[in-house]
């Protein structure tokens, strides 16, 4: 058995989907790790496999059509990819929790908020209903929902989107998990509410000493909360770096493209509405991936070798990894 010094260590994870047209390699040889108490950002365009990676960790991939076909996910000496279902259930919610993108639909409409949070305490802590309910109210208070006693008795449709996402966070953190996976937790919310939710998550992360894996396609969110970033493209990790280093000196052409496509503070006031650069071309379909580098068709630095051979993930030192032939010897 292999051990890892990291809290969560994903090694060469491959999650594929069998579709009518062929096998979609949604996550293809993805490796990264998460350490205690850190916030790791995972960015990439829509469809690059962020959610599939998260669901693989939780073992929530719908099977069929999906399947983890290779790799390991090490957590506390266990390989989550092969853990038996009962043991996996004890980890889910209790030690690794997850919140989803859509606060409108990720709470069950026929149970009260309090019931849904209390369920966590009943399930993982073996509490009786009364006690679990009190704990649920306490959790609602911690996520700064006003009048938590009253709110606990309300149904999801009686709450606003921001309130619901707070309730989701309360539910996820109920059992004081070691890891919180947040899959685009703020994407569906108004900008002002987004900022509040991010602040709340950061504060709770300190209080609960939880490591957070923040999935987003918004580099602005990453800049605000993450210490380290994993950039994904078409099922692969293309770059990994500390947040500051990544923003100051992006290595992979894809990362550079992503950074150019977000507005910088100050520039707008000087030049009026600056036209944002977009990365030309489209994300390739997972079924018609190019033989070489997956970004090659859209890359302005592409050379012959990029078309022929897929680049390896190179270690550039000082915690930086990049998957690009530009940095090969």
């Amino acid at each position, binding site marked *: 058995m292999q051990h890892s010094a990291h809290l969560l260590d994903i090694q060469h994870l491959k999650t594929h989907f069998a579709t009518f047209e062929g096998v979609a390699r949604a996550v293809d040889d993805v490796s990264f790790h998460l350490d205690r108490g850190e916030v790791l950002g995972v960015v990439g365009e829509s469809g690059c496999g962020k959610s599939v990676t998260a669901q693989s960790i*939780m073992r*929530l991939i719908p099977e069929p059509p999906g399947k983890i076909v290779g790799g390991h996910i090490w957590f506390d000496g266990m390989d989550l990819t092969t853990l038996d279902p009962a043991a996996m*259930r*004890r*980890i*889910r*919610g*209790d030690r690794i*929790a*997850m919140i*989803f993108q*859509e606060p409108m*639909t*990720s*709470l*069950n*409409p*026929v*149970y009260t908020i309090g019931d849904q949070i209390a*369920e*966590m305490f009943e*399930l*993982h802590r073996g509490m009786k209903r009364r006690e679990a309910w009190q704990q649920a109210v306490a959790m609602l208070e911690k996520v700064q929902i006003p009048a938590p006693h009253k709110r606990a008795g309300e*149904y999801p*449709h009686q709450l606003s989107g921001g309130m619901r996402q707070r309730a*989701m966070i309360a*539910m996820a953190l109920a059992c004081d998990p070691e890891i919180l996976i947040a899959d685009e937790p703020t994407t569906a919310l108004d900008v002002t509410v987004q900022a509040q939710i991010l602040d709340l998550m950061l504060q709770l992360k300190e209080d609960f000493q939880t490591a957070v894996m923040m999935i987003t396609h918004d580099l602005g969110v990453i800049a605000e909360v993450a210490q380290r970033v994993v950039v994904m493209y078409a099922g692969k990790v293309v770059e990994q770096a500390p947040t500051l280093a990544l923003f100051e000196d992006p290595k992979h052409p894809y990362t550079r493209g992503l950074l150019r496509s977000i507005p910088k503070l100050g520039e707008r006031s000087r030049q009026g509405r600056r036209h944002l650069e977009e990365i030309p071309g489209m994300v390739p379909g997972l079924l018609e991936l190019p033989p070489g580098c997956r970004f090659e068709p859209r890359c302005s630095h592409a050379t012959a070798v990029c078309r022929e051979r897929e680049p390896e993930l190179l270690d550039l030192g000082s915690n930086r990894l990049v998957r690009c032939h530009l940095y090969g010897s």
Partner: protein
Amino acid sequence: MTTYILRRLVQGVVVLLAVSMICFIIFRYLGDPVLTMAGKYATQQEIQEVRRAFGLDQPTYVQYGRFIWNALHGNFGKSYVSRVPALGLILERFPATFELACAAMLIALTLGIGLGVAVSLNPSSWPSRLIMAGSLGGISVPTFLTGVLLIMIFAVYIGILPPFGRGETVQIGFWRTGLLTADGLRHLVLPATTLAMYQLAVLLRLTRAGMREVLAEEYIKTAWAKGLPPGKVIVKHALRNVLIPVVTMAGLQFGELIAFSIVTETIFQWPGMGNLLLQSIYETDQPVIVTYIMLAAFLIITINMVVDILYAVLNPKIRYD
């Protein structure tokens, strides 16, 4: 909530009034009751006397008013044939029909929901496909055919279940039940299954469709992510959401099971209200027919109202204003 219930009550009364009007027309104008009562060979004078005695010589609205007045007092007149109050005659048959309908509903609900959930979890397995094909049969094969087939198989060929009648019954107060004896229960199996078949198929398809939809919902992913075991996710989180329309449907169908068990009761010679109705139609026994229609309308309206209120209670999103 109170206004909601009140409004439903008023609606129910209006519908009942409409039904009563139709009943009155049937009663008064379809075939001359005087002739039926006085007999074929009555003289003109006898006919006049009967007409006066029953108040049938008065203006229509007076007659209708009295009809309603009597109906409100549970008095729908006497059966022309057996000369006893029609309502009593029907109520005497009510337990048989009610027990049959309850048994059918129980079969339809448990099998319908159970199989519907099972099919939704494994939609492409061959047992699922077989069940779905069978459910189409359940919807499209007419009741009399199902009944006759069941009799042929289980009563004639295999010979393990009785083909007709209610078997041994026990009288408890006004209620004559067949549920307390083994013989009575054995007699219940085939007719209840026959009566249940259509509802079972409908509930099964409804459950399956609902489950397929709900299982794809985000909150089901949340439920798995909480670490809940499959049973809790499927029953507590998914099925609970599907149950609202399914139970509503079942409730709405229940009144109809009671009211329209006529075919099943006829095939199995079940001594219930449906059987009585058919017999009364043969004999042009209008008081019984009218009473049956009024009672059926009353039952269906009441049950629908109860179901609507339950639906509102079950579904937190319903508003009453």
